[in-house]
Each structure stands twice: as C-alpha cells, then as structure tokens.
C-alpha cells in the first residue's frame, strides 16, 4: 500500500513537472511586447522587463523559474493585473472566497444528493423514483450557467430575495455575506446534487438486489436494518471517493459561476491573467500549477481512498 502510494505520488510529480514545463515554454513563446500607449513610459517598462529577466533566453528563464518558483516557492510579482504586488500573496487573498462558496455548496449539496438518491433507490420504479430520475436527468444535463441566469432573474431580480452579486469585503462569516452567496451556491449545487443522486441510486439499487441482502432479510432483519447496516454501507464504497474527489476538485471553483456572480475568487484572476493584452506570466504560471495540481491530486486521493474504505480493494495489484 505504502509502496503504491509512493509510486503514485512520484508519478504525479513527474506528470506535474512535464505539464508545468510545457505551459511555461508555451506561454513564453508568445509574442509579448506591451503596446505603446499614451502616458506609458516605454523606457521604464523595458527597463523593468529587463530586470525581471524577460529578455533572457527561454531555457535560462526556465532554470530560474524552476529554482525560484517550484523549489524556492517564490512565484514573483505581478506585471499586468496588480503591478508590483506579490503573486502568491494575492492568490492567498483571493482563495477564501472561492473556498467558502464551494464548501457551502458541498455542505448543502452532498446530503441532499445522497438523500434523493437513497429515496429513489428505495422507491425503485414507483412514481417517486420516476420524478426524481427525470429531475436528475434534467439537472445533470442543463449547463450551470443556465441555472445561474434563472436564479439571477427570478430570485434576484423578480423576487428581490438576494443581491445580484456577492458582497465585497472580507467578512466571510457575516449573515449578509452568506445571503449574498446563496444564488451562487444554488447554481453550483444543482449539478452536484443531481450527479450524486444519480450515482447513489444506481449503486444502491445494485446492492439492494444482491444476494447477501436477501440472506440478511431471511435471517430476520427488518427492511430498515438491512438498508442502513448492509446496503448503505456497501454502496458508499464507490460513492465516498466520488464525494471526496468532488470536494477537492471544487476548490478549483467554477470559472463561469464565479464570473456571473462576481465572486472575488481565483477563477476571474485566472481568466484575466490570460485574456489581458499581454499575459501576466507569474499569475498564469501560479494558477496553472494550482489547477493542474488540484486535478492530479484529486485523482490520487480518490484512488487511495478506495482501499481505506474497503480493505478488500487493493489498488495497483496485478489481479
């Protein structure tokens, strides 16, 4: 097990390094000359870029990048978006908003999704199941920004329950802040609830028809007992890693939802760093590294969690 974990982590680091190197080279290959503009001191800009090392050969810059950023942890200063400010500090400053919205979403979406899924599985092929399954099908398919429009139009504009955008400021635990993120939570949560409900229903129906449940029933356990003690536990084996993976993946946030609801998170920062006239190298590299890392790490955590939940599963074994 330990061997397998170490192997996976090392492999992940290699993949991570390759991706980051590719991103670095590709972004540096872009033509990057700031446009001349009235009121800009071009000489000053050129001098700054010279000092930042942007005129050195790419390979040399790459070595510096690996030494300073990947090993040293110094990700440099911003050149475009927040001129002169430390990129890492800005990133940390933007992080709480993203994490808060996503944690709230999970808190409300996971129990709801599980409950709906379990209910649908228990009422299999009855009208309750059909209603839930149809709803799930619709909610899984419709893109999240469509919910965002609906929520914004009906709840924010027509009924005026919530503000259009998230409050600015950093008091993340105040009531008004919570109210202002509810639209974003709802729009983000629909997809998660539906996905989870669908998966839970599928897993649980499979377990419920298995033979050991029949045995448990013939031994004299009540239906509730068999469901809670046997079926639910076993169906959680694939579901729990999925929740875990979603939890990690969701830290990356949803770029679109963050933009629609004006959440001052990392998503808009990332888009701004690549869509501005000249890319902001340091922001781009830090955020690319962040998103890549999140993606790879969630894969590993999901794989490893299987064997923690169910010791019978041996990941990486030959059989």
């Amino acid at each position, binding site marked *: 097990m330990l061997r397998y974990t170490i192997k996976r982590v090392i492999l992940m680091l290699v*993949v*991570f390094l*390759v*991706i980051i190197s*590719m*991103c670095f080279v*590709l*972004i540096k*290959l*872009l033509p990057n000359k700031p446009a001349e503009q009235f009121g800009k001191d071009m000489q000053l800009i050129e001098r700054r870029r010279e000092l930042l090392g942007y005129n050195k050969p790419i390979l040399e810059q790459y070595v510096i990048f690996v030494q300073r950023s990947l090993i040293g942890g110094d990700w440099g200063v911003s050149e475009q978006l927040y001129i002169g400010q430390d990129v890492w500090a800005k990133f940390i400053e933007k992080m709480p908003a993203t994490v808060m919205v996503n944690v709230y979403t999970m808190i409300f979406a996971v129990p709801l999704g599980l409950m709906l899924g379990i209910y649908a599985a228990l009422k299999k092929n009855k009208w309750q199941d059909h209603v839930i399954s149809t709803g799930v*099908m*619709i909610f*899984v*398919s*419709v*893109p999240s*920004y*469509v919910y965002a*429009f609906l929520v*914004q*139009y009906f709840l924010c*504009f027509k009924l005026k329950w919530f503000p259009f955008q998230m409050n600015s400021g950093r008091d993340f635990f105040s009531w008004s802040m919570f109210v202002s993120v509810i639209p974003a939570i709802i729009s983000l949560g629909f997809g998660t609830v539906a996905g989870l409900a*669908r*998966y839970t*229903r*599928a897993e649980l*129906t*499979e377990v419920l028809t298995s033979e050991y449940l029949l045995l448990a029933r013939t031994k004299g356990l009540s239906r509730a007992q068999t469901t809670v003690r046997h079926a639910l536990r076993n169906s959680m084996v694939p579901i729990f890693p999925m929740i875990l993976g979603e939890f990690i993946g969701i830290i990356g946030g949803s*770029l*679109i939802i963050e*933009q*629609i609801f004006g959440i001052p998170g990392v998503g808009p920062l*990332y*888009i701004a760093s*690549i*869509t501005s006239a000249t*890319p902001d190298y340091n922001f781009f590299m830090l955020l*690319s590294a962040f*998103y*890549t890392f999140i*993606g*790879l790490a969630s894969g590993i955590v999901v794989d490893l969690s299987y064997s923690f939940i169910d010791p019978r599963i041996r990941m990486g074994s030959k059989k």
Partner: protein
Amino acid sequence: MKSVKYVQIPAEKFAFVPMEGRTHDKKLETKPIGYFKDAFIRFAKNKSSVVAAIIILILVLYAIIVPMTCQNDYTLSLTDTMYLNYAKLPPKIKGLEWLGFDGTSRKTVNNATYYTYVALGIETGLDPIVEVYRADYNDSTASKKTTFYDLKVNNYYLMGDAVGMIYMTLTPDQYEDIQAWQDKTGIQVIYPAIQDAKQTSANVWYVVDKKGAPTLKNGELQPQYKTTTPSDTSYHSIRIAADNDPEKPLAYARVTGTSTAKSYVCRICKYTYFQYRYNCEPCFAFGTNGRGQDILTRLAAGARFSFILAICVSSINLFIGAIYGAIEGYYGGQVDIIMERISDILSGIPFSVVTVLFQLHLSKKVGVVGALIFAFVLTGWIPMSGRVRMQFYRFKGQEYVLAARTLGASDRRIMFRHIFPNSLGTIITGTILVIPGVIFSESSLTYLGIINLESSTMTSVGTLLANGKQYLSTDPFIIFYPSLFISLLEISFNLFGNGLRDAFNPSLRGVE
C-alpha cells in the same frame, strides 16, 4: 451405470433416406436479426430516447433549414447602424398573440415620455399604448411635479427607448425612392418636419414646455410643424390629414448641403421604414438582440456552427482515439504503459490553458475556429482511446481472435477487421456523447471571453449567451432562447446517448 433398455422399434417403422432431393432444416420464416437491427429494436422500445432523438432531429433541422431560408443582409450584418433601431424587440408571432407572443411589455414611464407615446399614436396611427394600468400618479421617491404611468406597450410600434421616430439624412435618390414606394403602397414613411431647429427629438412634433411636458390646448396636443411654400415640390407624396392648407403646405424634410449635393433630413417612422426596406412588417418570432438582429436566424446560424464544430471534433477524436486505443489495448504491456503516460500528461493539462495557448499561438495562422478545433482535439481523443482500449482488452483473448491468428491474419487485420467491429457499439455511443460536451465547452469558453467567435458571418450559441447576459434583467428573452436551445440539446443528447448505450450493451442497462 445402468444400461437403458429400449423398447424394440418394429422394423416397418424404419425407412430409407430418400436419395433424390435433399433434406433441409426448415428455412427461417422470419428475417434474421443482426447486431444493429437488434440494437435498433431495443432502442425503439426506450420511449424517452426516441423522443430525445426526435428533438435532436428537430434541432438539427432547425439549424440547417432556418439559415438557408431566412438568411439575408439584415440577419447577419453587424455594421449597419440602422439595425440598432430595431434592437431588443420582444418575441412576436403572428397568430400566436393570445399565447403572449404579441410583442408587448409592461413599462412605467413619466409624464413627458407618456405624451411622446400618445403623440406617436395620433400622428402615425400606430398607437403603442395597449393598456393603461395606472395613470398619472405620484411616486414618493421622485419629485412631486413628475407624474408616472404604468402602461402595457407594443414594443414594435415604440421601437426601443428612442420611440418610433428618428431623424435620417437621405440623398435625393433615396428621398425620391421612398416617396415612390409610399405612392405605390399607401404606407407613409416620411412625416412632416418640425420647427424645432435643434432637432432634439424626432418624436416631439407638438409644443412643449422646458421640462418636455406638452402644453395642451383643450386637452389636445399643439402641432409645431414646419411650413413651406406651394412652389416647393420636392415632396409630392402622401400627406398627413392636418396638412390641408394649399397655401401653406408642410415641409417634409429639412434641406441641407450645397445646391449641387443636397441632402434631406427627414423624420422617419421606424415601423413603416422597416416595411419599406424589407418588404414585410417587423415580426420576430424570438425577438431581436441588442444589435437588432433576429434571434431566430441568429440562433440557428450559431447552432449550425456549433453542430459542425462538434461533429468535426468528434469525428477527429474518433479517428485518433480509435487507432491509439486499439494499439494500446492490442499490444498491451510496455507499449500500453508508455502510451498511457503520454495520454495522462495530455489529459492533465487544464483545458482552459490549452485553449488559450492555442488561441494565442495558432489563431493568426489557422483562424479562431481552427485553433479551437486543435484545442478540442489535443485532449479530446483521450476518453475515446480509453474506451477503445478497454474493449480491446476485453476481446483480444477470445477464441475467435486466436482462431484468426492461427489462420495467419496480420495484427492490423485482427485489430480492425475482427475486434474493432465488436466494439463498435461502445464507440458509437462515445462519439455521440462527445457532441454535447463540445457544444457545452465551446459555449462556456465563449461565455468567459476566452475565445471570440463573433463576426458578421459567424456566431455560436455561447456568443449569443455572452452577448445577451447584459440584458438579463431588462430583456430576458434575448438570453432565454439560446439558453433553452442549449438546455434542450444537452438533455436530449444525454437521453439519446443513454438509450444508445442500453441498446448496444443491454448488460449495462440501469448503470449510470
């Protein structure tokens, strides 16, 4: 073992096998059912999938037929500023007015604006006020002198916030042409000029006070038209009813420019001008967007683009993914491990990074769309190759493969003639399910502003959404139809894909 004692069969019951003629098995009376036919029968039993397939068919037909039949300069051009006058018109369908598609909306306006509406109705006969909910009331938040009206207005007569009339500068030719059209059809486009030399608003043809409220006489508006002499014959077409004094006819244009290059500044009614220009009354089934383009045709053009993009991407993905996955799965071992790592690395790159880099690097050489296709293909084939790989692992140990190999078939032949057809069901399902994914990603990327597909001849569903979001609270229909389209598309493709998967692989039924 106990030997069974048979009852002796008498000799006369035996008969010789007839030598002439041949004994046959009974010939099959029904048609044999092949793999695809079987799958089709199973698919046809799944009602929701069939409905989904029909919806997809309708959407595809809509995307193909509508741009072909309705395409004209008006729907596609972005450059003519005249279209801006027809912006944000709500949906109106002739014959379906009772369903709410009547082009009306609720509006609260102040006193001065209310009278411009009334004036428009009096002058042109196109009364924009359908119903007055609440008249002449004071709002506690505004000043006491201003009063407000709650109205139900016909937006097609109003034509936006600038209200029905605009000033337009015409060349002598255009001026004559409009007049000729007026004579022919009897519909008036040009209305009399106003004395107000500043030309502040083309709608205020009546006497107003400083605040813009009309000065009424006997409860009626006081016209302030510009008059001319009977010798002026530049306008010789339909005149309004009030213009009945042959000694002092009204002037229908303000003449500017030099004597050799005259131009006529006219008050034009937008509604009838539309009829003059496009030979039909303005009537948009899905309304118009912020630039005055018809959403029905624009959405169809966008949908067509999205479909073509998705089909291109999914067929390229299928091609690359099938070959890659086949090699991986068939050879296995060391080859598999190395190739899996390559696809691992590729799939690890965040998609938005790929798109941006391709946009920045390639879009100058192969265009925005080319760069987008590259970005989709770079990582898009990986799920497909994974699927094919699994199928190959499943089938390569089976007896028929062994038999083929024993008979001396080459690797390539075994891969593509023997194993590949067996995994076709999974591959078809995978290819179909890629299409909504591509459309969704494209719309997200355009929505975020990472790619820009807007041009005079091209648009996409995502572009329509991105352009419509600023009108969400004021004119929700602009964003409603593209959203409805994409939602319907995603739902029906998912249902359709699930149905296909169940049909091709019944053992997977019910597994999501």
